[in-house]
């Protein structure tokens, strides 16, 4: 594994790593409160990547660890994420801001490792990926749009969509963004109309048997699929946590009569939460 990393010692230089400006993709024009989350993730990422860029041996060690991740360790990450997901789904009423932030950063930490390994995988298999020889699994993005699209022919899907994807929103990671569960029927219908002609590579029947993770991946196709499933899952859990954070922020704002809670600093809200 280590030898393989040496052979590819220059690959990191060409890897599609995240640039400073790419954090805009994470939250576009964040409010001060969401800016705190954006900065925390940026810090997590830079703490991981900066030492690797500066030190040749660290770079080699990093690449060898990424190769191990691609072969074996990503299965462990998947299991860790499943555990966090279950916890988030079960204990939705008992979360404080600090706990939610901790879980959020834990998921993001796993996501960063996964994204870095994806960069390495992409470099090694660029031709296969670019020529669509290996495909990405169905994403939550597609599943949510499929539900929206189905509202066009069956309005009972409004409730199903809200139940399944109610924690999503426009600009998903922005705490101030209203979640789809907060949308009125008319607003959802309006949104649904946008998807009328959207081509989909996923069908409703696919959702019933959607198990996309392979526990013993052998081929590149399976590894690529697994890494993208983990990425998608980590994003989904993060958005679920963001929705819970938003709910908590609004509860605190209500309790302390704060007119614009998303313009507050994170520390201010933590202080308010801890006040009796």
């Amino acid at each position, binding site marked *: 594994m280590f030898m393989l990393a040496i052979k590819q010692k220059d690959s990191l230089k060409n890897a*599609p*790593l*995240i*640039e400073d*400006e*790419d954090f*805009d*993709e994470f939250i*576009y024009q964040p409010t001060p409160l969401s800016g705190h989350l954006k900065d925390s993730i940026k810090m997590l990422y830079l703490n991981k990547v900066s030492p690797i860029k500066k030190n040749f041996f660290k770079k080699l060690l990093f690449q060898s660890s990424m190769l191990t991740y691609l072969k074996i360790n990503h299965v462990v990450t998947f299991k860790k994420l499943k555990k966090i997901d279950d916890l988030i789904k079960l204990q939705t009423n008992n979360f404080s801001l600090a706990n939610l932030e901790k879980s959020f950063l834990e998921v993001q930490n796993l996501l960063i490792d996964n*994204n870095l390994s*994806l*960069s390495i995988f*992409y470099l090694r298999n660029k031709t296969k*990926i*670019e020529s*669509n020889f290996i*495909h*990405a699994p169905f*994403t939550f*993005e*597609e599943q949510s*749009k499929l539900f929206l699209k189905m509202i066009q022919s069956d309005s009972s899907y409004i409730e199903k969509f809200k139940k399944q994807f109610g924690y999503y929103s*426009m*600009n*998903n990671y922005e705490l101030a963004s209203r979640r789809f569960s907060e949308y009125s029927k008319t607003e959802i219908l309006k949104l649904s109309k*946008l*998807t*009328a*002609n*959207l*081509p989909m*590579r996923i069908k409703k029947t696919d959702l019933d048997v959607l198990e996309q993770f392979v526990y013993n991946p052998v081929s590149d196709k399976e590894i690529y699929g697994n890494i*993208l499933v983990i990425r998608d899952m980590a*994003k989904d859990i993060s958005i679920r946590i963001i929705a819970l954070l938003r709910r908590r922020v609004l509860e605190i704002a209500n309790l302390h009569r704060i007119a614009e809670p998303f313009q507050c600093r994170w520390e201010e809200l933590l202080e308010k939460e801890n006040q009796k």
Partner: protein
Amino acid sequence: MRLNKNISWQGKYEKLVSGGLSDGVFPYKCVKDVLDFNQSLSYSVIFIDHLDPDFFIFFSSIKCIVTRKGSSLSHLSILAREYQISVIKVDFPVEIPLSGNINIDKENNILCLC
């Protein structure tokens, strides 16, 4: 960069996703969010600031996305690859007209606003 008479701006682009990118002149529209969707139906190219997954909705009408920020492994790039939509990255100026035509020179990776 030297400009031709009929070109208001041109720049070298980086191809993030090939899709079905071809040479030619295409109508483009600058969009900010999904609410611009109905106004962009007759355009085959959209200009966006960053690769926000929300723009997936536009896949019903477009062939190409021109972005200022993002990478070949952005969420939207991965989706675009599956739906044969091209994604190119170029540092286009903020003050370009909101709609118009672009010329794509695939061989030299050059995009011109005309």
